């Protein structure tokens, strides 16, 4: 008993020391630390890896080699600590007086400048981090796409509290629509022949392709929404599941887009900046929406539809708009997905994809933008880590999900507002 208490107080004290150490570091401080770490990796990464007995720089913080070659784990841990953890903490802390000052100065201008500044640095960090290997670039792009998917599904399953299973279907619609758009108009292709417009225009028209993909997905969502939002209950789950399978088998039987063989040779337009910008745009718009009273109406409908109705909320319109909106973003993410891999086939958008994105939503946390980002990023990394297990990784991920459901039924970071101003706000040392 006494020992237990003693142990507890040591933990508490360590926690307090760590909090005191880290609390004065603003986001800008962490970013500066990250910038430093990235340059460190570029300069001494290779030689350090050799020194620690690693064949090459551990691409994903050592997660990928953890299961492939367990003997290298200590080296990977040492590498990650020396290159990332320790420098980021030390630089973050040391620079905190300066970064706090800069953050404070920036906040005096409209919030927009602060946000652009932070996002710009974040992009720089990601860009130079992923520069090291093409595998990092691909993983990063797919993770960003997963963030978009998760966030848009969270609008339906979290904020609106309905259970939708059709997200892979929307993603497929978006992927194929955007691909067809760019193939027909801007690419010479064996299915669609000569491009209708000059391919030079292509990269500039890529946003149009994505928006077209999103629109098609939203149109698909309308097919589900009209019958299933008349009443509440399990209808949506069932109808949307059916929709997902219908879309999949429809594409499989559509020879124009390659049928079960899939559709390939999409132009290489989805580079890292494009994917990043779309992800930021998606987070920004969805966060704007769910924090407005119009968006909060979703929570009102979820928690008590009758009360929402009596308080002048047009519940049916609210649900329709949110559903179509979420489907739009799923479609956009599908379009990006197709252009990142430059190949899509219908079997990608099946039950496994659904399980993946549902796991990300419920693991990260319902009704929370933070949660979606955390869920998508952590499960994407976990997925890469467990890749050597092949199909058996689908034992581990559901197991993890079950544990989360038992101990935190709404997910890791549920019901937390994503307040941009407080994120970029300078941290004050509490002297008082």
């Amino acid at each position: 008993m006494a020992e237990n208490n003693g142990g507890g107080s040591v933990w508490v004290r360590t926690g307090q020391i760590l909090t005191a150490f880290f609390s004065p570091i603003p986001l800008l401080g962490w970013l500066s630390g990250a910038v430093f770490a990235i340059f460190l990796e570029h300069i001494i990464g290779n030689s350090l890896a050799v020194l620690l007995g690693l064949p090459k720089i551990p691409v994903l913080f050592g997660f990928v080699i953890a299961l492939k070659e367990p003997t290298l784990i200590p080296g990977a841990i040492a590498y990650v600590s020396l290159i990332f953890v320790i420098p980021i903490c030390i630089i973050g802390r040391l620079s905190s007086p300066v970064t706090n000052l800069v953050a404070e100065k920036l906040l005096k201008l409209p919030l927009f400048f602060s946000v652009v500044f932070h996002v710009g640095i974040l992009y720089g960090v990601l860009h130079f981090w992923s520069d090291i290997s093409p595998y990092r670039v691909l993983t990063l792009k797919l993770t960003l796409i997963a963030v978009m998917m998760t966030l848009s599904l969270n609008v339906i399953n979290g904020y609106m509290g309905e259970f939708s299973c059709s997200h892979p279907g929307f993603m497929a619609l978006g992927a194929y629509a955007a691909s067809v758009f760019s193939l027909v108009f801007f690419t010479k292709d064996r299915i669609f022949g000569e491009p209708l417009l000059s391919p030079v225009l292509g990269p500039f028209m890529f946003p149009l392709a994505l928006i077209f993909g999103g629109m098609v997905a939203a149109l698909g969502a309308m097919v589900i929404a009209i019958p299933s939002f008349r009443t509440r209950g399990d209808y949506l789950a069932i109808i949307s599941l059916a929709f997902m399978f219908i879309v999949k088998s429809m594409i499989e039987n559509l020879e124009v887009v390659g049928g079960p063989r899939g559709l390939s040779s999409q132009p290489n337009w989805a580079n890292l900046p494009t994917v990043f910008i779309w992800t930021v745009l998606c987070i920004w718009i969805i966060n704007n929406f769910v924090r407005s009273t119009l968006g909060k109406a979703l929570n009102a409908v979820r928690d008590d539809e009758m009360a929402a109705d009596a308080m002048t909320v047009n519940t049916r319109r609210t649900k329709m708009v949110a559903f179509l909106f979420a489907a739009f973003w799923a479609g956009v993410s599908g379009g990006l997905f197709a252009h990142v891999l430059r190949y899509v086939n219908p079997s990608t958008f099946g039950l496994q994809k659904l399980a993946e994105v549902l796991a990300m939503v419920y693991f990260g946390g319902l009704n929370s933008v933070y949660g979606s980002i955390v869920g998508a990023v952590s499960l994407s990394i976990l997925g890469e880590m467990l890749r050597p297990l092949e199909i058996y990784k689908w034992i581990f991920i559901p197991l993890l999900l079950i544990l989360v459901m038992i101990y935190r039924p709404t997910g890791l970071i549920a019901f937390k507002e994503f307040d941009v101003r407080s994120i970029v706000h300078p941290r004050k040392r509490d002297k008082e």
Partner: protein
Amino acid sequence: MPLLEVKNMSHDFGGLRAVSDYNLVIEPGQVRGLIGPNGAGKTTVFNLLTGVYRPTEGEILLEGKNIVGLQPYQIASMGLGRTFQELRLWRHMTVLEHVKMARYSKLGYGLIGAFLGTPKRHRKEADNESKAYALLEMLGILQLADQVVTNLPYGAQRRVEMARALAMEPKILFLDEPTAGMNPEELIQMMKIIREIKDRFGLAIFLIEHRLRMVMELCEVIQTLVFGKVIAEGNPEQIQKNPKVIDAYLGTETVE
């Protein structure tokens, strides 16, 4: 022209006639009461008037316009606010968000504003918020603004419901047993609040209540509903003396 007029409204649940031949006239600024034993159909009357159910027969005129068949949110935005007997609060939302939400139809910005966070939206939301704060202050729950409603004591939750209904800027307010489950002290405060609301906003109020003391003190005209039929209508003294009311509502047993 009366604010709210109901003509020969009837409603069937399957074969059961829950409300039959119900008539009502409420003038602007009037406080009316509806009493009756449990299961008399009082809440059904509320649900019919607010559009939750559609009456089988009859007309409901709000400021001369027939509102039968309109959706509840449409009727609500025409100026008919209500509270619920069984507190229907949104359990994950804060007090402030509740009050802001009730101003949904008066937001003044559209989806583009919501998606892009335009300056217009921020202006309207700030405006909305200051009105919400004023209401919270009036009802004495300003210090609870950022609390999630499920953490609040019962009396405060009732006040949140009242603030939420008032935020709609209704012309007529339907209160469904606003003092259900309250202790005598909370009851007195709630009566004070209802009087204050009436004086400040000049609202018409339609009140369902079980506590006769409250109805007798507040209401100008009282209806007694038994098995879906109005058996008596009049001012408090008339109702108290009416033998039918005493018989049906207060009970026939003589006290030895």
